[in-house]
């Protein structure tokens, strides 16, 4: 009885040992991975005199919450956040509307050259932002749109990514539904609004998350087009703040910590859509 049991028991011990090692190693690596954030928080709470004290410690002799107040008062971050929210919200709405219409045409309508045109759309993903910003700046300058919201929003609202993503979702809405509605005399716009879009809300939610983040974090273009501080978006404000107080590390880190809040918030609220969006774009490439 005992002899045949022993190898099996040994195998079980080996599996438990391997699983435990795996978890311990993962937890260690994740902690290491998060160190920059931990270090950022620690520094942001240190008193001025202790920021560059050796040997390094994670926290100072006392927790200096005041640093956050100082950071907030030395730079008009509130205004940059409001600007960022306005730009990201309006830009996202515009992107959803234009991508939704285009995605419907690419998934539910039939016309000559449809798939070739869609490939051309996808090819525009190759165009670097840097290859566009010089003429865009000249255009906005000519329109007297420098330092305006529309200049920050319009250039990035029409992108192939949005059309691609919504098309992937629309494709999974069975054709029979729109077919039946067509038979009953419904127009394409009401089919999109009443049948396809409601069945693809996950697609719109996913695109909302990714577009919002894209606008919110965009740095190059707002930096070019916003020269007046009251038009700065959050990343631009942070960049200017760094230029002014670059060596006051505890205030710098407090500013950086400010940007982690929306990241956590967005992830907590929309984890499902982020994962879904990455999945569908990854598998859609097959």
């Amino acid at each position, binding site marked *: 009885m005992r002899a045949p049991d022993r190898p099996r028991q040994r195998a079980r011990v080996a599996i438990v040992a391997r699983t435990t090692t795996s*978890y311990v190693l993962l937890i260690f690596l994740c902690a290491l991975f998060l160190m*920059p954030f931990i270090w950022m928080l620690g520094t942001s709470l240190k008193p001025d005199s202790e920021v560059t004290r050796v040997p390094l410690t994670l926290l100072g002799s006392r927790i200096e919450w005041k640093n956050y107040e100082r950071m907030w008062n030395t730079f008009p971050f509130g205004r940059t956040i409001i600007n960022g929210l306005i730009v990201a919200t309006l830009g996202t709405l515009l992107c959803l509307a234009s991508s939704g219409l*285009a995605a419907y045409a690419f998934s539910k309508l039939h016309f000559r050259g449809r798939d070739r045109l869609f490939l051309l759309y996808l090819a525009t993903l190759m165009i670097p932002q840097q290859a566009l910003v010089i003429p865009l700046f000249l255009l906005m300058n000519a329109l007297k749109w420098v330092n305006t919201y529309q200049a920050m929003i319009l250039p990035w609202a029409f992108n192939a990514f949005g059309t691609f993503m919504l098309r992937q979702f629309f494709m999974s809405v069975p054709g029979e539904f729109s077919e039946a509605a067509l038979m009953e005399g419904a127009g394409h716009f009401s089919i999109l609004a009443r049948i396809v879009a409601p069945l693809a809300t996950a697609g719109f939610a996913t695109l909302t998350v990714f577009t919002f983040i894209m606008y919110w974090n965009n740095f190059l273009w707002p930096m070019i087009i916003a020269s007046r501080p009251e038009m700065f978006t959050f990343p631009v404000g*942070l960049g200017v703040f760094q230029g002014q107080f670059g060596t006051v590390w505890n205030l710098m880190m407090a500013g950086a910590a400010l*940007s982690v809040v929306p990241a956590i918030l967005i992830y907590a609220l929309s984890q499902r859509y982020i994962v879904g969006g990455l999945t569908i774009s*990854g598998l859609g490439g097959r």
Partner: protein
Amino acid sequence: MSIINDLRSNGIRATSRRRGDAGIAFLFLLPNLSGFLVFLFLPILATLGLSLFNWPIIHPPKFIGLANFRQMFTADPAFGHVVVNTLVFVLAYVSVNVVIALAFAAWLTSIGPGSTLFRSLLYLPVLVTPVAVAMVWQWIYAPRFGLMNWALSLVGINGPNWLGSTDWAMPALVLMCVWQLFAQNMFIFVAGIQAVPATYYEAATIDGAGAARRFFHITLPMLSPVLFFGITMTLITSFQTFDQVFVLTLGGPGDATSIMGLYVYSNAFRFFRMGYGASVAVVLFALVMFVTLLQFWGQRKWVYYEST
């Protein structure tokens, strides 16, 4: 894109072809197409046109033909460094990113509970404003009070002045970018691995294949289309890297980390040489296109598409 979807849309093809959707399709595409026209096609043409002009912003533009490109390749000593830096950055960043993302994807799909939590933690930096990330890493890389050199000193290594050294600034930039963004690929690869039918693994296990063999003979070939997608997208975006390098090093020290995405900006908006900036942008675009086409050409050799 997949066959199932094509079959689905075939269902309404018969009726709608008779109706003719071209008119309505044009209306649906109009907002997006006009946006593309104004904010994408015209600007890219304008960039091409501008590259043929000498335009120091305070003077009127002067047509100079290909002189900008001639200057770039023969008379601008910085440009050669910038191209080499860009290629080094892209190669190092993309390969390290993909290898780490793949390793973590394979690892996290093999463990039981908790994998979602680990994935979420690793994804957090992706969402954080790159400007903020670069500020934090600037502090980490500080030579005397930085976390990095402190950690190295624990194992007896006397760390370099990361961002002040022409040898170490580029690796420092790559490390930071990989840290911030690899989880994006990790998520895509996890989805790809989870889409591999479990029966393949069961059959292989019965045949006595170990974990390594299963990875190299099942996971990797089945994942290759997703891998191709991830590599292509990462390549395209890495050529455009700007925010991180702008804040972390501004191309320095010297031009050790000056890459094309930054060089376009510096020429056009710091030195106000609009024409020259545009011509660098043209070379950048050509390079992205060339590398992407190379990818598509090369995929026939290693990407495995299921024939069903």
